[in-house]
């Protein structure tokens, strides 16, 4: 099963954008808020969010890998544990489009303060688009249970999985999303993710939490004694 197309970005989650700028839950001053609103407007004008998704059967699994329909293998003990009980997985990618990269480049040459705010708005926006994409997948599978979405680079799921995931989704052609040699996604404000789909709730132990995060020990939330909440 394939899903995808355009996604509607109608506004930026200000709270999330401010968190990205280090505000935590503190209120910004009037100047910063005005800047945030200006950046939001510029971002909405430049972004053309799109996504692409394939729902695949889990063919078989071991302690340290999950093999999907079509032959793609997701290596790692973490993804194997994460997809426990999931008979299918939705592999998807989301991008805000290259127009946002161009906007970020231009803004960096014009005004770095605006550029950092814009960058944070874009990061918030791509998460929102992922939420939207995930909601579409959930709608398509009523009554199913879904663990949280999981991306290359989380836990021991290698970031080098970006290229094969994008190839599987025909993402370069279909939505203009590629990976650089370093596996960085281009356009920059893009995400690939895997969403497990289970027939019923799968009981697992504790949440994965910070211990399994690749940012563990250097995350800015942790430095301030908090967590990102995922």
């Amino acid at each position, binding site marked *: 099963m*394939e899903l995808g197309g355009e996604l509607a970005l109608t506004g930026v989650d200000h709270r999330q954008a401010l968190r990205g*700028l280090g505000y935590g839950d503190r209120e910004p001053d009037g100047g910063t808020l005005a800047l945030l609103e200006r950046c939001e407007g510029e971002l909405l004008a430049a972004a053309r969010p799109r996504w692409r998704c394939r729902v695949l059967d889990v063919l078989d699994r071991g302690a340290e890998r999950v093999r999907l329909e079509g032959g793609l293998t997701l290596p790692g003990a973490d993804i194997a544990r994460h997809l426990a009980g999931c008979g299918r997985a939705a592999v998807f990618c989301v991008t805000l489009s290259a127009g946002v990269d161009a906007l970020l480049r231009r803004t960096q040459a014009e005004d770095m303060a605006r550029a950092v705010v814009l960058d944070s708005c874009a990061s918030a926006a791509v998460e929102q688009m992922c939420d939207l994409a995930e909601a579409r997948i959930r709608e398509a599978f009523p009554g199913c249970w879904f663990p949280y979405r999981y991306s290359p680079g989380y836990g021991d799921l290698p*970031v080098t999985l970006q290229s094969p995931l994008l190839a599987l989704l025909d993402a370069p052609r279909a939505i203009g999303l590629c990976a650089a040699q370093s596996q960085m996604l281009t356009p920059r404000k893009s995400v690939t993710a895997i969403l497990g789909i289970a027939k019923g709730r799968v009981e697992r132990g504790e949440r994965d939490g910070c211990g399994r995060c690749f940012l563990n020990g250097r995350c800015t939330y942790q430095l301030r004694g908090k967590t990102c909440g995922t």
Partner: protein
Amino acid sequence: MELETLLQREFVLLDGGMGTLLQRRGLPLGAVPELANLEHPDWLLDIHRAYVEAGSDIIYANTFGANRCKLASTGRSVAEVVSAGVSLARQAAAGRALVALDVGPIGRMLEPTGDLSLEEAVDIFAEVMAAGADAGADLIAVETMTDLQEARAALLAAREHTGLPVLATMSFEENGRTFLGCPVSAMALTLTGLGASAIGINCSLGPRQMGPLAEQLRQYTHLPLILKPNAGLPDPAGGGYDVTAEEFARELARLGEEGVQLLGGCCGTDPDYIRLLKGELAGRVRRRREASVPSAVCSATRTVPVDRVRIIGERINPTGKKRFKQALAEGDMDYILSQALEQTGAGADILDVNVGAPGIDERAMMERTVKALQGVTDAPLQLDSSDPAALEAGLRAYCGKAIVNSVNGEPAVLDAVLPLVKRYGAAVVGLTMDQAGIPAGAEARLAIARRILDRALAYGIPRQDVYIDCLTLTVSAQQAAAGETLRAVGMVKEQLGLKTVLGVSNISFGLPNRPAVNQNFLTMAMAAGLDLPILNPNVESMTAAVRCFHLLTNVDRDARDFLAAYGGEASAAPAAPAPSGEKRPLGELVERGLRGEAGSAARALLAAGTDPMALVNEVLIPALDRVGEGFERGTLFLPQLIQAAGAAQAAFEAVKDAVAARQSGQSVSKGTVVLATVKGDVHDIGKNIVKVLLDNYGYTVVDLGKDVPPEQVVRAAREHSAPLVGLSALMTTTLKSMEQTIALLRAEGLECKVMVGGAVLTEEYALGMGADYYARDAKQSVDIARRVIG
């Protein structure tokens, strides 16, 4: 038979989809389709034969993704996959159809969005194309491109590594732009200029959506047109497309009548679609183009037709500008970019780029400047140099259709520069002078213009791409000359029908009230037929003259542009005076991040005699420190820190101007820091934040940009004797390059300290890989610079 012969026909039939048909035969999901050439040759023979039997005059070999990047994980070489693919197509065609080597996108993005350089892309394509030519392909079909620069790379590779003709198509969305924002017009102008045999559109849309785009395409090229649509749009219910073979054939045949000569199908189409299309086309006649292609230039994302007066901004030019020369000498690209953005903000349509100055490697600087400019502005560029090597470097890097400024009537100049203009598909400015100098009379200038035009035509440069500059002479020296220049403009316009260019500001040298002279001369020249004034758009009276001219000549319909520019003024009261409250001290302006005010306050202090260094050390830096402390305490945040730095930067610009004006050789710099985002990393916002802060603490920052190889960091550190090198990495995959860079700096015996930062780094890891310092954030990098440099 050759492509040229085939193009004598009313219509040329291409083939249809390949991927769909391979999947129907059992190609697994996610597999590399080109491997079927080796593993299932029978599938390919079947598919190709079916297309030939359906009526395809050209079939595409199964080589779309057969490049070294996409084949990397397969263990197969480009040569074997391409050679097998072309051979199978030839075998199936058996002389009944031509075989095209199919070349799709590489699958990695080019700079500036991605990490692939133009020359790497050319090299990747060259490997595929050389293999295709060796295997006996009759032509090359470059298709499904969404990045104009990648399409350029493919055309350059084809021309430089094979003698085969090229059909070039790109994929557009319904809004007429590719994923990377390239409009149909820019594609048409650029690829026509690079020597494609036919151009067009494939994939992404169905025939119905392609109709309006084909019409746009027709306007901007004289080449045969290609359409290879999908079988409609993807069916929202999943799988498949929404147009039947009958509808497809009917709709596409209609577009054939509208003027499209080469027709086929893309995703979702099969031999049935082609067979029915052939039937529909029988007996139909293709509409021939009536109008010639207009004069127009473009960047990758914006086309500027010369259908009204278009302003060419003159400010990217070191002549007579100390600050600009200093920026060139220091490789300060940010300064040059700021000059570009200021001009486009003020109304420039096109930017002249001149980076020639004594002691500057103009060739390298032109290439670097063109790349940097096209990353931040969509204004087309006019490359301004008398050095053919610099022009060629700029033209090769430039993604779009540029203007070359300039040639003159001297045969040696014409023969050195016009071939470059032709090779890269640019427009060219011809100055009406030659080895004998500038003729006094308009008739003699017209004669030179004619000579330039003839030579350009002989080189194959189309008439509409030759612009003539009748040359402005200084009226204070030769008062009668202004009239002759204007008369010559009129004559070139009427008798040769060419577009005209003039550098306007020269007119008033040596006179008082220059702005008034310039503005009036500009208006007179526009009335005489000037199309492309080269001027300083930051001078409001000049852009106002152009807007007024468009208003008064009914070009600016309904005064839309005029009202957009001035509409707010008409009803408003005279501009409010500045707030009357007491003036804030410069330090406070910096703390509050008030950029404009900080700049003016600094200029006022300097004009009143404040020592520039004292201003930096006693006002700017303490103010930044106070902001920095707030940032560390968590009472101020990143945007405020950077806004303060931006305000300090405005004050710093004033200081730099003051120091440059003194010519004392004094430097405001505390010392040099080399910054780079390491090899493999293509995003550098973190490094740029550090740069802004260091800049404004008075350090000279040599910014090497992103994706920087270790050798370049070593070279820069050595060349600038930098005591401190800052490296940034964003990905776990690029930490390796960071480590290699540090190792190379050490191995080469450089005594610099190294600080590192980036989202995935920890202090422990940083020190473990041999860095001297780990900077958690931009503020810390300043603290480190102070510790190392002072």
